[in-house]
């Protein structure tokens, strides 16, 4: 329950998007905490959502290391349905800036003090006429476990 976002920290950069943590998460043992990851897709590009509506498309994925926090659920924002030059029907995508929320369980025996929640974001970006190979970028969120 105890969640505190105290600062924004940029920690990831790639060609088609940038990733930043929503800031340090203050979490209490035995409770839950919500961490946010802020993604900015560069103008002229889009990335597939976590639920692309074509089988061949690579979905957006956020995964976390099992320690020190245990991931309970991930909440992606509602994707856009956009049509592109190469698509017969609208595709489920993200453009511009959006936030992914992760709800963590803080184990009762989690080590107290400062730490990091580490994860990976896998995405695949396209422009209106070309696509870029899927990329995986590291994601980390500073933690203060009490």
């Amino acid at each position, binding site marked *: 329950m105890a969640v505190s976002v105290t600062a924004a920290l940029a920690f990831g950069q790639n060609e088609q998007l940038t990733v930043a943590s929503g800031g340090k998460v203050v979490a209490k043992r035995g409770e839950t905490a919500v961490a946010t990851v802020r993604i900015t897709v560069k103008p002229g590009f889009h990335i597939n959502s976590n639920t692309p509506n074509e089988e061949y498309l690579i979905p957006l994925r956020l995964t976390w290391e099992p320690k020190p926090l245990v991931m309970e659920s991930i909440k992606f924002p509602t994707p856009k349905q956009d049509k592109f*030059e190469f*698509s017969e029907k609208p595709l489920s995508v993200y453009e511009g800036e959006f936030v992914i929320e992760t709800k963590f369980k803080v184990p009762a025996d989690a080590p107290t003090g400062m730490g990091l929640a580490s994860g990976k974001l896998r995405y695949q970006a396209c422009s209106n*006429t*070309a*696509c*870029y*190979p899927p990329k995986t970028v590291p994601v980390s969120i500073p933690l203060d476990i009490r």
Partner: protein
Amino acid sequence: MSRFLLCLGALLLVSTSCTTTTEARALKPEAGRKQAPGFDLKDSTGKAVKLSEYKGKVVLLNFWATWCGPCKVEIPWFIDFETRYKDQGFAVLGVAMDDEGWSIVKPYIDQKKINYRVLMGTDPVAQLYGGVESLPTTFVLDRDGKIAGVHIGLVSKSEYENDIKQLLGQKKANWFQPIRLGDLASMLLGR
């Protein structure tokens, strides 16, 4: 009236220039073409394929992947080109860049009924071709194995077809190329 004719003339001149410029941009002049880097890649049957085997043919060397939407649009065009121009010394070579390899590419080939040869790409080969940062990236090779043109991203079917026809020597302009008297005599005598 004379001013109108002058404007019309200028307009025609501009439009002619534009057409010429577009065509010139599509394919490099022969003198400026560089040899396409050689490679040795496996096809879907496991056979090793060298690019040098295609010397003498016009080749559309298409880097693609199953997850690439624009690539999916082009595949039926390439199937059509392979069917229509194969007998004139033309071939499409697909280079799949899927990390998962044949397990995902082979079913896709079957599903799309791809009639041209598909090879499994590697990063070193992509590097030889400038890194191939985005897909589709298609190199148009002339009969000497030289790079006559490059298309990055989705372009129109007619752009590809113009390149192919031009390189196969099907354009009217190429039908009136000077011919040596000796060649003409051989043709007439059937030798």
